[in-house]
């Protein structure tokens, strides 16, 4: 007896919603970043669930890709955040808005 796919998707949806709310409401760049990671993991979860449902490994392979890309993205993103912090002693994204208009 397998766990129904709906449960996985529900969990994935909740995680994704949490991440989205985090991205949209937080001002701290690090927290926004973490929320983005949450969204990514929500998607990974959905992929794996579908993979299992279809008995097809493609979904898992895709999840691995996603994790690798996310790791690379973390490196770049954190580096940018560190650079911003060194420059202005804060990582509040609302302060970093010189490139408007």
């Amino acid at each position, binding site marked *: 007896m397998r766990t129904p796919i709906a449960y996985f998707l529900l969990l994935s949806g909740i995680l994704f919603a949490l991440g989205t709310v985090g*991205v*949209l409401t937080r001002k701290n760049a690090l927290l*926004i970043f973490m929320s983005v990671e949450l969204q990514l993991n929500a998607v990974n979860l959905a992929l794996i669930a579908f993979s299992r449902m279809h008995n097809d490994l493609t979904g898992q392979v895709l999840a691995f890709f996603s994790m690798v890309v996310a790791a690379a993205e973390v490196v770049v993103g954190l580096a940018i955040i560190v650079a911003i912090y060194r420059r202005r002693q804060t990582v509040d*994204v*609302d302060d*970093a*808005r010189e*490139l*408007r*208009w």
Partner: protein
Amino acid sequence: MVAAEAIPVSAADGALGLLWLLPAIPLGVAFVNLFFGQKVGRIAGVVASLAVLVSFGIAANAVRELLALPPEQRLVVQHLFDWISVGSFKVGVDLRLDAISATMILVVTGVGALIHIYAIGYMHGDPRFGRFFAYLNLFVFFMLMLVLGGNYLLLYLGWEGVGLCSYLLIGFWFEKEENAEAAKKAFITTRIGDSAMMIGLALIVFHFGTLDFEPIFGAAGEVLSNGAATAVALLLFAGAIGKSAQVPLHVWLPDAMAGPTPVSALIHAATMVTAGVYLVVRSAPIFEASSIALDVVAVVGLVTLLFAGVCAVAQWDIKRALAYSTISQLGYMFLAAGLGAYAAAMFFLVAHAFYKALLFLGSGSVIHGMDEEQDMRKMGGLFRKMPVTAVTMILGALALAGFPFMAGFFAKDVVLEIANTNERWGFYVLGSIGALLSATYIGRLIFLTFFGKPRSEQAEDAHESPAVMWIPLAVLALGATFGGWLSLGPEGRISSFMEPIVGLVPEGEAGLGRPIFYAVAVAVTLTGLILTWWIHGSGRVDWLAQRERLEPLPRASLNGWYVDRAYDLLFVQPGKTAAWLAAFVVDAKGIDGLVNAIGGGVKRLAQGGRLMQTGFVRSYALAVFVGAVAVLAWVGWRL
């Protein structure tokens, strides 16, 4: 015209193989003089003259070889290289030597060489001496290409080239504004005709698929319908009208006298302006395929002959008088060609080249001796001061007036005789009036210049020109005196030489008998000469006062009957207005306005649009989120 039999084309070999050197030498020397002429001074003129002399030698030799061939084989084409080759359309650089071009190359190089020699004296001390001779040689090159070209494109190349040289040489003393203006006027006016001619060439390509003379002339009658032939012929003739300064495009030639006198003699009397006559004679089969083209040519020639003659009678400037005389004489040539007497037109061309070059060079000598004074009112009594110039010029004048047994006598009377014997009375009577005008204006010029009392200080102190200037005058005077003997009657040598190419002179049987005809011709000439002697030479008439009584006719005639002013009002001013409108209204307001409006609109749009860039990362994230949801919703709805 009695249709000329098709002549087999002979390849150029032997001495004729050197034909290409004929234009090549002046071209080469022109470039040498252009680059080094300034440094070597007077030698530039000597080298340039030698180049043309050598060309003359080659030309004479080539013509001798040509004459050695039997008359029905006198057509030699030297193919140098392919110029254009597009599909089946080919244009080669072919030099074509036949009776017509043989005559022309002898005139161009012979008279050209004499004028070069003369110019060494005339241009002495000019700061751009070397460049002058470079231009002259370049002109000789283009003129030779024009007459030797074996297809219309090569002819057109030479045609435009001589136009360019004419422009450069009229404006040679460009420091004076009016000279530069005259150069522009000459170039633009002839360009009007040239544009029509180019359309004519395009029509030829359209109908024949080639520009080579041989296939075109061989099939002109069959390929072209009457209408097409008329169109092509008249378009070509429009080019001739521009180049040969016929009414209504004659206005540039009197102004072209702003150039140095050797230029007036070479380009605007002896050679370039006769290119139009050459073109008509060359294209005779096309003109004959049309029912009216030749009549148009004859009428234009006649109108020009009379109109320019009337203008010439009233001129004070010695060179302008000769310029109008040239226009008038060119009218005779077109009249001859229009009557179908191509050989007569060519003979007239040769005779005219002699005596008109002589008259121009003589006038240059007079101007030289008078310290650059050109007004005949200030001359008078120069016969004693400049005997050689005076005697040679009088010979030239007699030739032009058609005095018996001089060149012009034969030339003119061949033309009039054809009109007479074919009973084309209008042409005969008006042509005779033209002859009377010729005798009158040239007699007036001679008596005003050389006889009577000196009417100014310069005339008192006038001096004869150096030998380098009067020797060419003497040689040309021989040509003007005896040149007519080349053609004693329509069966004369030039006519029979031309006959295989252009056919016989169409002499009729009717008309006045020979004795009456010649009596009338001589009477006309003598009337003109005696009349002018009585007015200007006898001292019994106060001609300035008499002229005063005739006003405003002389003034109108002096100003060319205000054709210039009419053109100014009709074309130049509206043209300038149109240009002003195009530049400052249509372009500045219309086109620029449209472009600026588009640019401004985009700018204003962007001004509003860029406010979306708030700089808040989270609002961007929200936009991405909303966008993603919207896309998903749309996809879901579609499924």
